[in-house]
Every structure is written in structure tokens, then in C-alpha cells.
């Protein structure tokens, strides 16, 4: 065996690359990813409003007050009252609970379900065509239509709304995860793990799942945003939560008839919905840039 002669210093290893300089944690994050900072702050604000609603000067959102119906924006009723005299400020704040619960629950459930289906599809090849054709079938129906149809089968409740929207959103995640799994299975580090004797469950858990998480998290934020819109639409057309529940969609539905004379009834829930959806989408865009290693290199 002949050695290749090398100059002496060449065999000395260079130092390991130092970790990249980090800004102050918070400052650095805001500077690098304003989307995450702004979106995150607005989402955080909404969560705070929803959780702290009872202590933010609200009254019972379902309390009727026929003496004070259709009062405009005023000191006593910051967002006015509706045609039954209910305080719109209170209803909007409590309504944030419905929207956020539906948004987050659908995002979590659709991600988990899509992840499971995608992993099975990517690893159990005989099941792949079957599962993917089912996903294609679900995707072929517009998600709002599908949610309406599913709601028609059950009673209106927050839980059923979550289930109906989740079913319409699962295929997106399933397709995404399946595609990544098929790509990852060809990766040398996965083949090396197989060659090193790693069993399939550990292979999936350590090598496949962690490498699919970043895109799934980004997708989950978009699903969260569209779930909140679909929920509002379902409520608006009367197919969602029961009308007694103060949700942004329900408030808008009730104010619709009076839109031309008392626009504030529709305006405030619509404004909150828009801001929340915008915030979640900003957060998603920011996360997409932050979690994409190629984007990181570009800055």
C-alpha cells in the first residue's frame, strides 16, 4: 500500500468552523425575520384578548338588553350593540376564542393526520395508490363546499366544525409529507442508517419525521389561517356553530341585514378576522424563510 506523500501541515486539521455570530436573541430575530416578529406579536395579542376577555371590561356576550339595541360606537359600548342589545365588543373578544380554537385545532389535527397518512403512503408502497387516490378525491372538492356538506350531516358545534374543516385540509399535508418521505428515503443518510441496522420505526422517528417538520409547520400556519376563514364562512351561512355562540362569523351573519344602516356590527368582527388571518399568514411566511436552510444562506 503506497502512501501519498503530503506536506506536513496538510495533515493538521483546520479548526472546526466557529458558530455564526448571533445577535441579541430577540433583536436578531426581529431584524432577520420581521414577519415572524409582527405576525407572532399580533397572534399573541389575539390569544391574550381571547384568554383575558372576562377581565377586559366585557359583559356577558349573550346578555340581551332590548333597551339598548343598535347603539353606535360609544363610551358604554365601545363597538356598539346589535339588534338584540348585545355588546359587540364583548362578543368580538369572546368570538376570538372560537376562531383561534378552530384555527389551531384544525392546524394541529390536519398536520398530525396528514403526517400519519403521508408516512404510511411513503413507506407502505402497496397502500400508496389507494391513499393518494382518496386524497385526490377529497382535494377535488372545494374545501368550503366539503365542510358545508359535512356539517349538513351533523349538528352545528365547535367540535364538528373542527372535524369538518380538518377533513378538508388533511390531503394537503398528506401529499406534502408523502412527497418528502419519498425524497428522504433516497437520501444517503437514510440508506446509511438502514445499512447500519436501524429498524424502520426508529428510522421514521429519527431520520424521516424531523426532516419533514419544517415544511409541515409552515403548511400548518396556512391551514390555520384558512380554517379560521372557513369557520367564519360556515357561521355566516348558518352551517357552523349555533347562532347563540358568539363567533366572528355569527356576529357578521347577524349584522348582515343591517349592513347599510349599522355597518359597525359587521365591521368589527370582520376587522379582527382579517387582522388575525393576516398575522397568521405573516408568521407562516416568516417561518418559511427562517426554516429554509437555503434562505438562511442567502442573507
Amino acid at each position, binding site marked *: 500500500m503506497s502512501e501519498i506523500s503530503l506536506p506536513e501541515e496538510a495533515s493538521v*486539521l483546520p479548526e*472546526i*468552523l466557529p458558530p455564526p455570530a448571533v445577535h441579541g436573541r430577540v433583536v436578531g430575530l426581529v431584524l432577520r425575520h420581521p414577519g415572524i416578529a409582527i405576525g407572532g406579536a399580533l397572534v399573541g395579542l389575539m390569544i391574550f384578548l381571547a384568554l383575558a376577555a372576562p377581565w377586559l371590561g366585557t359583559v356577558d356576550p349573550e346578555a340581551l338588553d332590548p333597551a339598548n339595541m343598535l347603539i353606535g360606537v360609544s363610551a358604554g359600548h365601545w363597538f356598539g350593540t346589535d339588534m338584540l342589545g348585545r355588546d359587540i365588543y364583548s362578543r368580538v373578544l369572546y368570538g376570538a376564542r372560537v376562531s383561534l380554537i378552530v384555527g389551531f385545532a384544525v392546524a394541529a389535527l390536519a398536520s398530525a393526520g396528514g403526517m400519519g397518512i403521508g408516512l404510511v403512503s411513503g413507506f407502505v408502497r402497496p397502500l400508496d395508490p389507494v391513499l393518494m387516490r382518496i386524497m385526490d378525491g377529497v382535494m377535488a372538492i372545494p374545501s368550503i363546499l366539503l365542510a358545508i356538506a359535512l356539517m349538513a350531516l351533523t349538528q352545528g358545534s365547535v367540535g364538528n366544525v373542527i372535524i369538518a374543516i380538518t377533513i378538508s385540509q388533511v390531503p394537503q399535508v398528506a401529499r406534502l409529507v408523502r412527497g418528502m418521505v419519498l425524497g428522504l428515503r433516497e437520501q444517503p443518510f437514510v*440508506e446509511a*442508517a438502514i*445499512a*447500519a441496522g436501524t429498524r424502520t420505526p426508529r428510522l421514521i422517528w*429519527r431520520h424521516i419525521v424531523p*426532516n419533514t417538520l419544517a415544511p409541515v409547520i409552515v403548511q400548518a400556519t396556512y391551514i390555520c389561517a384558512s380554517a379560521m376563514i372557513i369557520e367564519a364562512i360556515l357561521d355566516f351561512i348558518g352551517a357552523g356553530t349555533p347562532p347563540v355562540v358568539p363567533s366572528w362569523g355569527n356576529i357578521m351573519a347577524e349584522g348582515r341585514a343591517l349592513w347599510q344602516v349599522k355597518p359597525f356590527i359587521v365591521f368589527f368582527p370582520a376587522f379582527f378576522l382579517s387582522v388575525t388571518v393576516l398575522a397568521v399568514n405573516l408568521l407562516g411566511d416568516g417561518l418559511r424563510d427562517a426554516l429554509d*436552510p437555503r434562505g438562511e444562506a442567502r442573507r
Partner: protein
Amino acid sequence: MMGDAAPVIEVTRLKKYFPLPRKYPGQNSLQVHAVDDVSFAIGRGETLSLVGESGCGKSTVGRAILGLIKPTAGEVRLDGMRIDHLSAGRLRPLRRRMQVVFQDPFSSLNPRLRVREILAEPIANYALARTRAEFSARIAALLEKVRLPADAAGRYPHEFSGGQRQRIGIARALATEPEVIICDEAVSALDVSVKAQIVNLLADLQDELGLSLLFITHDLAIVEHLTHRVAVMYLGRILELADRRTLFALPFHPYTQALLSAVPVPEPGARHRRMILKGDVPSPVNLPSGCRFHTRCPHVFARCRTEEPLLRKVEKAEGGTHYVACHLETRPGTAAA
């Protein structure tokens, strides 16, 4: 130089065809003949290099030996035991004895795991260590073997250079205490100086641990410093197989001659005759009739177009073994080129 005892790895008439999807219903199914009847053996402590241009099926041979793909036909034996038909569960205990180092030092390490976790995985898979202390000791020993600093264990792959990553890949391969390591283009993606370091490291490890190496590469220059024997592959078949000295000094097959003439000579002003092959590699879907090299061979004659030459021993080989698949010796009116 060659292992005297039984070979560690024995590949017999290995074939791997990949079916192509039909373009329209009823179309005759087409196949890529990635590996088409390949046989060789690797002795204990021996290095065999599998050389060929990209797409000639050399990596597929490596993957078939490792059991990452099922061969279409043929046998793979590890220490006399047939392993190509085993189920994943039956193969798993045997995988410990053969490991792999891949070409791309970036995609061959999971970016989400620390070096410690990467190295601990094979150790845990075969229960080679039980306590935390045992794991740490083994990982430290592995890092030392591949000449990486001990503090590398706590770092992520992206904090290392290409050559250092390749050392991590080698450490992972060593973690199961294998007898055979398949180096699939293990140094092809590295800079020349780093390449030399890694090649020397592999050679040292072989001496130290008595490893057998299957060195899959397209780079004859690297092979010359490392290998005992060389097999030259073209379009899924071995055209020439000889010990290093014979192959580099007296290449018989015109394809080997062309490959050797393409190796740069590290001597300014040195003149050497470059043998330039005409045309492209034919498609592995529609193989040429007869000798698969005949479309580009400068010495082609009638027999080459109709009859596929078999790999046979060269009569006048001095010393070691020299096999070649070529009709040239039988060409009327010519001595060998």
C-alpha cells in the same frame, strides 16, 4: 496481497434491471440494464476498486451487496453465506459486518442529529454498548480513529467541512466494527488535498483493522494508491479485472487503455498519448449487440458486433490474475494492441 482464505464478499452473476414505466398501454416493457452479469470476490483485508464512468452500474453493485436493493438475478455471499435473498429482518444482524461510506458528505449525514447521535445509532442498533459511559468511550474512540477532535461529538454536521464530514461518515461506518466497507465514490466530492487525506486514512484503517474495502469510483488516479485489484466496468458489465500493477502497466482492454490515457500526469510538460473515444455511452435500455463496447472501440472487427465476449483469464499474465472480456486476441492478423 490478496486474502488467501475464502473471500469475504462474493458476487456471482449479479444482475439488476430497473423496469421503465410504459409510455402507453401495451408498450413492451423496457428495462435499464444497470448491472448485467457481474461476478467478483473480495478477499479479507483486500481492496477491490470498481472503476467506470457514471451510469455504468458500479453504485448499483454496491447497493445490491448492502441489501439496499434486491438484485434481479445472481448471488451475493458474505463469508460464504448467501445474503441477497434474505428478508430485512434476517439481513439485519449481518448488516453489522458490512458498512458504507457515501459520496456526498452533505446528504450522507442527517442534518438534525449531532455527531454523537449519528455515531451512537449503529452502536445502539447492535447493542455494542449499554451504559452512557460505554457509549461515550466508544464514540470518543471512533472520533480518534478518524482523527477528529473529541469535541466534535456535540456538534451538528453543518459545522464541519466536507473532508471532516466524510470522516464522520467513516466513523459511522466503523461504529459497527464491520469487516467490509463499501466506499461509494467516498472521495469524489472532495478537494484534491482533502481527498489524499481521506484515502490515506482509509488505507491506515485498513492496515489497523484488517478491513476489506470495495472502492467504487470513476477516478483511476486515486485508485492507484489504494487498491490491490481493479475491476473496470462499462454498461453494467466488468470488462477487465486485474491486480493494480498489471492493470496500470499492461491494460489489455481498449476501454481500460482509454481510461488510463485520460488520467492526468502530474508532471509539467510530460507528453502522453491521449486516446479519445468517439461517441457516447450507448443507452443501458437498448444495449448494443455483441460486445457492449463495440460502438466506441477503435479496434472493432466483425466478431465484436455479433458475439458478446466473456470474461476470461489472459494467458500471458505474469503473476497475478488478469481477466478480460475482449475478442481482440482472436482478431485475425493482429497481435493484441
